[in-house]
């Protein structure tokens, strides 16, 4: 079994190919549970999951919460804006407080890269990274890979283009780390101002021209333009961006005929993706959301569904 000995999920860069495969395999029966009338199994009865989000989120947090509930864990959502953090409590103290209440796993999102790693070193709880700064968003990449495998039959040796703001994207980084472990050719496409310098060094192909980058790819993962992270003028206007980088029907036509289009949501329609493409047959954006619950259930089961001594680090 692939997941033994791991206390936390901090990023896909730390997982082996076998571990990722195990998560994706277990997510299949989990998806069946979501789709049936009685969406509950007793597996994690008595386990407690707390979500601690220092950044806004609806789908990721709801997804984790439902994943926990479908497995019968008790889930609590801590909203930082109404918590003791506003009274000046330090991150470390907040974590300790959650820990001593008997929490088994904390799901954390933070605007600063590396926070989940820091937390993991300072608590006996299991820690799942739900997105940290521009570092990683491992469960998003896992659900992307699950969606690819479900539609393509495999996640191996594909050509995958990631289109948009690569610089600020933790989704892009987690996808790159994950897909490369399966021999995929990963291309990143975006304007030079939104492209990390030396990104080629992690083995991806870099394109500033959308048309060139999309040529013959099997999968296009479109990133959201994160307006909250665009403080300085990295591109002139949203219209200008859309002109050059919006995924339109004409641009989709450059990829393989059976191309799959992914988007982590929430979408800025008409900016990074046209409505026509978002609502077309090649896009599986809504199904990605369902798959997100399934992979998070798989992860929670693999991390907590067995003897603690056996899988603890």
């Amino acid at each position: 079994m692939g997941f033994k000995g791991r206390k936390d999920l901090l990023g896909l860069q730390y997982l082996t190919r076998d571990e990722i495969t195990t998560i994706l395999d277990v997510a299949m029966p989990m998806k069946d549970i979501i789709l049936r009338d009685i969406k509950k199994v007793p597996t994690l009865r008595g386990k407690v999951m707390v979500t601690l989000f220092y950044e806004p989120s609806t789908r990721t947090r709801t997804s984790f919460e439902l994943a926990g509930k479908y497995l019968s864990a008790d889930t609590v959502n801590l909203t930082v804006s109404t918590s003791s953090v506003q009274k000046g409590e330090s991150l470390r103290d907040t974590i300790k407080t959650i820990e001593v209440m008997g929490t088994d796993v904390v799901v954390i999102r933070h605007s600063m890269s590396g926070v989940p790693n820091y937390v993991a070193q300072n608590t006996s709880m299991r820690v799942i990274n739900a997105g940290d700064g521009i570092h990683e968003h491992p469960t998003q990449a896992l659900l992307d890979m699950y969606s690819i495998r479900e539609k393509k039959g495999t996640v191996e040796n594909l050509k995958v283009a990631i289109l948009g703001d690569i610089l600020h994207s933790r989704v892009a980084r987690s996808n790159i780390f994950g897909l490369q472990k399966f021999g995929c050719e990963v291309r990143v496409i975006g304007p030079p101002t939104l492209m990390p310098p030396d990104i080629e060094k992690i083995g991806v192909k870099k394109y500033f021209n959308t048309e060139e980058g999309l040529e013959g790819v099997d999968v296009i993962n479109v990133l959201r333009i994160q307006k909250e992270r665009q403080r300085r003028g990295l591109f002139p206007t949203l219209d200008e961006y859309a002109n050059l980088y919006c995924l339109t029907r004409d641009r989709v036509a450059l990829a393989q005929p059976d191309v799959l289009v992914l988007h982590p949501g929430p979408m800025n329609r008409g900016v990074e993706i046209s409505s026509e493409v978002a609502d077309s047959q090649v896009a599986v954006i809504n199904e990605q959301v369902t798959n997100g619950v399934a992979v998070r259930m798989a992860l929670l089961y693999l991390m907590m569904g067995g003897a603690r001594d056996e899988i603890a680090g």
Partner: protein
Amino acid sequence: MKFIEKNRIMDEANIKRVLTRISHEILERNKGVQNLAIIGIRRRGGPLAERLAENIKEIEGVQVPVGILDITLYRDDLTTLGSQPMVRRTEVPFDITNQAIVLTDDVLYTGRTVRAALDALIDLGRPRCIQLAVLVDRGHRELPIKADYVGKNVPTSKRETITVRLREIDGKDEVVIEEIIDT
């Protein structure tokens, strides 16, 4: 732990005869195939369910629905097991509500697997009734569970294990008793 084979208690012909008898018993008790379905507990209950359905088709000329139940998420021993079991899919592609369900498994022992299977089944719908068919009943029940159809009753000691091998999974049909020897 090491095992030595002590006794081969069933061979291919025995298993075939026993399954034929159980098929007739199922039909007799349920007065035919009306609203009848067979669901096997993963793994070796699966092929047994298929074989019973095949027999019933030969006898009555009707194919009854067959499903496979994965009970991993319903086990009561997840926190005490040596290693974490892999979760696989439950494949029951029909509505079980108001059906008579024959649940099949290879060995009935403590009854805990069957308990988990009953919970898993009831989460899929509300069957009219659930009956239990097993190839071997080896005793030592820890829960108040009894099989409706038994291939062979085999009194065992707790130091012994019953190993069922089926063609579909193991390449041959046999049931053997093995004993645990300390190393």
